[in-house]
């Protein structure tokens, strides 16, 4: 039955490839073209050479946004992974140690179900909820919990805290996913390894650093890449909960929001494309890492 192989291959690839080329590849390629133009988003445009990039170099808000993205790219994964590892370790190894090796704590299944739930909520929904949680009068959840004698705190309206609040929201949503992920990884570590180590008198700290962490290293790498991607996706959070479009005073400005603002509010789609191009090259570094991990995945699967 070798006949009809090529018509079949072409038949199966034509629609997916056409969609992908039109909306994904096409968009990325046009981004390079449009970055050299003064396109407003509608109608005709003319080529302006590298003007957009020169303007970008002098655009202080762009640099602020870039810096904020880097803060979150580094800080958010460290906190999320550290905290998730801690919780996952408690869930899986924190129980009483009767009869040899360590056990999971009682109720660990319930904890895993509760922690994971925020992962299912749309980020915009989470953003709206936390916009109210951080509300700056008594109607906000946190301020409502403060003693009556305290004056309500400004969270999102305070330059020093606004970006931290956004990172906290992201961490709140993500931790459960990684607890489940790391738990799965820890579950695949043989119980007998723990038992042997426990019989040798190893403390739980030793177990964690000598057994759990090294054997979980691959999963941690994957987690790092996933969180890196999530760290770029701040548009929903900033668009919904930041005050004054990335404020106060640009304190929550990030690149995705800069691209959106320039493309759709300031009618500078060409300039927005130039930001995209810069970002494209910046993410290539990150992409190399992603591809390396995914290729290893494909080989193993």
């Amino acid at each position, binding site marked *: 039955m070798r006949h*009809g*192989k090529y018509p*079949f291959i072409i038949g*199966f690839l034509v*629609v*997916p490839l056409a*969609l992908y080329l039109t909306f*994904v590849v096409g*968009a990325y390629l*046009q981004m390079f073209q*449009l970055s050299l133009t003064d*396109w407003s*988003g509608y109608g005709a445009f003319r080529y302006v050479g590298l003007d957009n990039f020169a303007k970008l170099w002098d655009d202080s808000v762009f640099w602020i946004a870039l810096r904020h993205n880097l803060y979150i790219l580094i800080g958010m994964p460290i906190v999320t992974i550290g*905290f998730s590892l801690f*919780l996952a370790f*408690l869930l899986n190894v924190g*129980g*009483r*140690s*009767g009869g040899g090796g360590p056990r999971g704590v009682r109720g660990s299944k319930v*904890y895993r*179900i509760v922690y994971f739930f925020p992962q*299912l*909520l*749309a980020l915009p*929904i989470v953003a*709206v*909820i*936390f*916009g*109210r*949680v951080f509300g700056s009068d008594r109607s906000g*959840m946190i301020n409502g919990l403060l003693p009556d004698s305290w004056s309500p705190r400004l969270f999102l309206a305070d330059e020093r805290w606004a970006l931290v609040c956004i990172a906290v929201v992201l961490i709140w949503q993500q*931790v459960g996913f990684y607890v*489940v992920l790391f738990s*799965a*990884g820890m579950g695949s570590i043989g119980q007998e390894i723990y038992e042997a180590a*426990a*019989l040798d008198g190893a*403390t*739980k*700290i030793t177990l964690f650093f000598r057994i759990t962490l090294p054997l979980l290293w691959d*999963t941690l790498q994957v*987690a790092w890449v996933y969180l890196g991607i999530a760290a770029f*996706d701040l548009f*929903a959070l900033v*668009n919904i909960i930041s005050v004054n479009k990335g404020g106060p005073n640009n304190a929550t400005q990030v690149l*995705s929001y800069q691209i*959106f603002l320039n*493309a759709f509010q300031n009618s500078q*789609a*060409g300039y*927005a*494309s130039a930001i*995209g191009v810069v970002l494209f090259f910046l*993410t290539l570094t990150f992409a190399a890492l992603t*591809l390396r991990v*995914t290729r290893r*995945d*494909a080989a193993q699967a």
Partner: protein
Amino acid sequence: MTNLVTDPPAVAARPAPAAEKHRQVSPLGGVAHLALFLWALATAGPLIWVLLASFKNNTEIFLGKPFALPESFSLQTYADAWSEAHIGQYFLNSVFVVLVSTAGTMLFGSMAAYVLARYRFPGNRAIYYLFVSGLAFPTFMALAPLFGILQSLQLLNTFTGLILVYIAYSLSFTVFFLTAFFRTLPAEIDEAAMMDGAGHLRRFFQVMLPMAKSGLVSITIFNIVGQWNQYLLPVVIMQGSGADSKWVLTQGIANISTQAGYHAEWSTLFAALTLAILPMIVVYAIFQRQIQAGLTAGAVK
């Protein structure tokens, strides 16, 4: 977050497990339970608060007792959210768009992945890497050109446009995941079917797809959750006159949230949030295992 800082000393102080084999509750067990319980509280707290506030009136919300029970449980706020704030309409739009686009993503994604995984032909690797490279770049980067492409195809502010874009942007991960999956399926059954005279199409639909069921379920869940939670793409695509009748749930709720800032109809917002969260809780309660497995399947392998 304080748990992270305060707990390790307690862990270190704990005697070796072997020394207290028969003790029922170890000191670490207590600390572990406390830490785990606190995070469960932090996870569930905001959601319980939203539920309670959805029954309160503005005065009650501003009292600053976030976890006090409402004076009465009337469903009026829900009725308002459903019809006057159009949550019902947004909800149905979301259901429609996600149903069609997930079906499309699975059909086209599995077709492309199958051909790429099991047929040798010139350009196979190139097409595979073209699909996978989409994983590395965040969606928002090429927003402006994507808008332009949809504009020129007259697909702005249409469900068709939104669905096609969802499918296109979901193909990267779907093809990546399913290609790896199809490669792992045994060749013998496929060859036996070929001997029996089954053509390419028949082998795909009657032999390969049923065998790939577990992989298909995982990636379907992944796509449903991902597309249901989309916000950026609908915000870009569903704009223009009359767009608000075609908004998806995330857009609709984000909009009520910004509106509520002026009109201060907080209880309607909280009711709308509850309406968006409840179906997820129900679905999660039923499919909790599959959902956790499905969403983490992409990361552990």
